[in-house]
């Protein structure tokens, strides 16, 4: 009969319509627990995550723009991990990283410190190559996506710097892995010395 297909299709939408109400009632009490449920296989009914009140869980590997990691010294000084080796600038596909190497004014020899470090966030394609190939774990990809602004986004060293604790916070597993590898390396070095 003509129209059966239509009715069949509409039954799906009707079902969904009803579900959206039953689900709403279910979540009335524990409103803010629903993010996990709505990103799971059982998600049905209303599907919305109410940003900015709620936020999706950001997975550890998520990458937005890069930032530079520094270790906090005992007296609060910033020990920048970056040695300005330039690997990130070479690996960067759109070439959005600019690095000026520090040169010792006395000897003229390059020092392992960036004098300047720029990332043009308006060119950056968030590919993550810089973080992937950095041998010093000095540049990492940020999780903070709320970076919109009223002007263009050229980031210099001061803006890019973030403490290692911030890094440990957003990527705990990677951080633990890297720290373990570093500790192992240090132990091996110490053993070799002894």
């Amino acid at each position, binding site marked *: 009969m003509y129209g*059966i297909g239509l009715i069949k299709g509409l039954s799906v939408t009707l079902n969904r319509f009803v579900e959206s109400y039953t689900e709403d009632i279910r979540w009335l009490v524990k409103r803010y627990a629903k993010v996990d449920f709505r990103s799971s296989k059982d*998600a049905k009914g209303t599907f919305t995550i109410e940003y900015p009140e709620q936020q999706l869980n950001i997975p550890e590997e998520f990458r937005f723009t890069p930032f530079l990691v520094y270790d906090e010294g005992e007296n609060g000084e910033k020990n920048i991990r970056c040695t300005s080796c330039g690997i990130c600038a070479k690996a960067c596909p759109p070439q959005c990283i600019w690095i*000026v190497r520090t040169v010792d004014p006395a000897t003229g020899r390059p020092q392992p410190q960036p004098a300047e470090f720029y990332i043009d966030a308006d060119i950056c*394609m968030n590919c993550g190559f810089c973080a992937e190939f950095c041998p010093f774990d000095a540049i990492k990809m940020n999780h903070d996506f709320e970076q919109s602004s009223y002007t263009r986004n050229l980031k210099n060293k001061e803006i890019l710097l973030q403490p290692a604790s911030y890094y440990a916070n957003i990527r705990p597993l990677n951080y633990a892995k890297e720290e373990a590898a570093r500790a192992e390396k240090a132990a091996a070095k110490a053993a070799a010395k002894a």
Partner: protein
Amino acid sequence: MDSTKNTDVLDLANLYKDSVKADDRPGFSGFIIAKEKLFDIAKDLRDKYGYDYLSCVSGVDYPETNSMEVVYHAYRSSGGSALVFKTQVERVDPMEVPSLISIWPGVDLQEREIWDLFGIKFAGHPDLRRILMWEGFEGHPMRKDWKEAFYEEEAKPLKSRWPDGNHKYAEAKAAYGDNINFEAGFDPEKWTPTDPEEALYSALKKYQTEDVDGIKTDHLLINMGPQHPSTHGVFRAVVILDGEEIVSLKPVMGYLHRNHEKIGERNTFLQNIPFTDRLDYFNSMYSAWGYSLAVERLLGLAVPERAEYIRVIFGEMSRIQNHLILFGMLWNDLGAYFTPALYAFEERELMLDIFEAVSGSRMMCNYHRFGGVVRDIDPASMQKIKELVYERLPRKIEEFDRLLSENEIFVSRMKGIGYLSPEDCLAYSVSGPTLRAAGIPYDIRRAEPYGVYDRFEFDIPLRYNSDLLDRYLVRIDEIKQSVRILQQALRDIPEGPVLTGKPSYQIKVPAGETYGRVEAPKGELGYYVVSNGKGNPYRYKIRTPSFVNVTSVEKMCVGTKIADFVTILGMVDIVLGEVDR
């Protein structure tokens, strides 16, 4: 490279001794045909030897040997590897090569592209206009000696970035302070604008009739796009209408021409991977696969078992997600606003969550590397994939099927519309579901298996009416087959490493050429890569399914109503990142 040296490939050099010679440059294969004989031999190839499917036409510029080359990759629709044949012209304007459009009409847009970007003329092409750039643009940008305004160096990495990389906007270095370039002495005030649309409009078939009552009927010219909600991006079509009926149609593109190929030739091999993500931005997992495949062939690199399975898993997931979006958008175009699209996006979001957790980004995954993938799937994501594949997706696909497939309005808008005969499908180099809806069982996963596809049990869905409804149904079946492949892959996936060798950002690729192609959700996606042994590709050409499939749109549309154009175009499943590159 290896695949093109199979024994079933014709030895053209023996057959046509006086006009063909084998390409004996190291790493190269195929045959070089004298351009005077190209047309005749090509005709023989199709009629005598069964190479009925011309997949890819690429131009290559060799200033050192003062020549330009046109490379053709032809296939048999019954399967098997490519026959590569080339023709060379001296690099002096005007260059001319015979057009093969009367043998394989599918070369239409590709030849226009080569004319536009390389300046090689195709004698006998009826409508040789610029395609990606506009009529009147200065120069042919893919030539090696053509420099863009922001040109810095021949190859990346650029020396200005390190160690003395004081930030400077590219504008500050460019001659005109912007991304523009003019010939010295150019005076914009004295320049007389030529109408860039004139050639386009004159290429359309127009008519004027007078009926018995003496009422004159004139054609109606309509521009759809580039800003039009149902052209799926910045696509433009110019149509001539007789009432509501389409008399003539020309696709106009280039509104998203982002110079992938020129940038790709400046990039290192690795740097191209994130750029491939931006070709077909629905299926970045698949786009990168084709490119990795091509470069891995040049490198002679084996991919670990586990990585091959992971590639299949994500490849098939993006296929499902791509087809679902197509259905949603198609319904949007047909007037069923939003509901199906919203349903489709729900499933897509769940898959993108997994992509994001594994690769780091929802859409631009940048997940493939030469010799594997960048990282393993974490256990939580694996669990999620299993839940989706075994529980949710089969249920949801069934629901989608129920929602749409039998809807009478939908069926009446699709049945019998946009017919393209199987012969035409092949002639127009149509690939993907459109080809299979015409009853031609051509799927690269079977015709020339790559990855580990030869280990899975799956059918190639076929339909025979070659209309819109069949193209839709083929896609539904394909989703079901994808789920089947996924279930096998998840069952069989071995443990082990996911990347051969140590990851490195500097890769030297041995000299040679290769054509890596995969069955992307939209059709055949091929990468023609030429390396000269340096760190960046000498030629990086992308044969995208969307671009080549658009060739057949005119043929499908003529004679139908203007409202059907939207549906037909939607069913060809174009994505502008691929059409314009």
